[in-house]
């Protein structure tokens, strides 16, 4: 796919809305990432940590947000990917992922990114610098 270089400032990438968060999503991510902190998978552990229920790994949401840029990885790469975690993601939450182009700097595109839940509350936000300049080091 191509076209990132055609984007105008203020333009957004196509939003991705994830399916409601299911326990199995988090179990799979725990296995694939190696993060077995039980507050992400086991109710009793989440409750004993003072949570109303299990919560998604922050890195699950951050890993999902990277999907906005996956269609463009033939053109460049995510040089900088910086996220601040703002809120918890619970089972059944519907998370939407967004990126808006803020600035072009040579071969680098600077995006503001965020993930929001069904109440439009931010669960994370941050920045992506997508670089189309790849050194021929390989």
């Amino acid at each position, binding site marked *: 796919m191509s076209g990132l270089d055609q984007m105008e400032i203020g333009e957004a990438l196509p939003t991705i809305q994830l399916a409601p968060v299911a326990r199995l999503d988090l179990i799979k991510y725990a296995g*694939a990432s*190696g993060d077995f902190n039980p507050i992400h998978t086991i109710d009793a552990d989440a409750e004993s940590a003072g949570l109303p229920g299990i919560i998604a790994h922050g890195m699950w949401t*951050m*890993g999902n947000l*990277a999907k906005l840029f996956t269609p463009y*990885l033939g053109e460049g*790469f995510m040089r900088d990917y*910086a996220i601040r*975690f703002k809120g918890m993601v619970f089972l059944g939450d519907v998370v939407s992922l967004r990126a808006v182009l803020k600035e072009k700097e040579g071969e680098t595109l600077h995006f503001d990114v965020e993930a929001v839940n069904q109440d439009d509350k931010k669960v994370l936000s941050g920045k992506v610098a997508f670089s189309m300049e790849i*050194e021929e080091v390989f």
Partner: protein
Amino acid sequence: MLEEIIGKKSGKVKNRIERGAVKKFVEALGNSSPLFTDEEAGKRSRYGRNIAPPTFPVTFDGGSIPGLHLPDKGLIHGEQNYHYTRPLFVGEEVHCWREVKDYYEKTGNFGRMGFLIVTFYGEDASGQLLFSEERIVIINEAARREMEA
């Protein structure tokens, strides 16, 4: 007291980016692209091989930092920042280590919280930096006391 861990590092650990691990990781996130998993598509790409997604370093072993013992409870992941010099390649070796960049405390509504900043580095076999990752972990008062005990 916890300030004493600033500057402490782990030893380098060799990781190999396994094809199966990348497949499992992108499948768990529903992050599909032939560039991650299809060998032919990888060969045809500008990299000439398959690549790993940007948060894949969470799977790497970065060793343990002497003197740093984080409790199981009372930690909040505050921030996560990656910087790459190029994408990671499936099959390559990445040599990883961690360093405590900073530690400070702030008093707020929930007591005196600790802020731990740990940087995670990955180099290729020739010592070229591939990525750095900065993680900010917020430690609540109870967990902080436990660490000081």
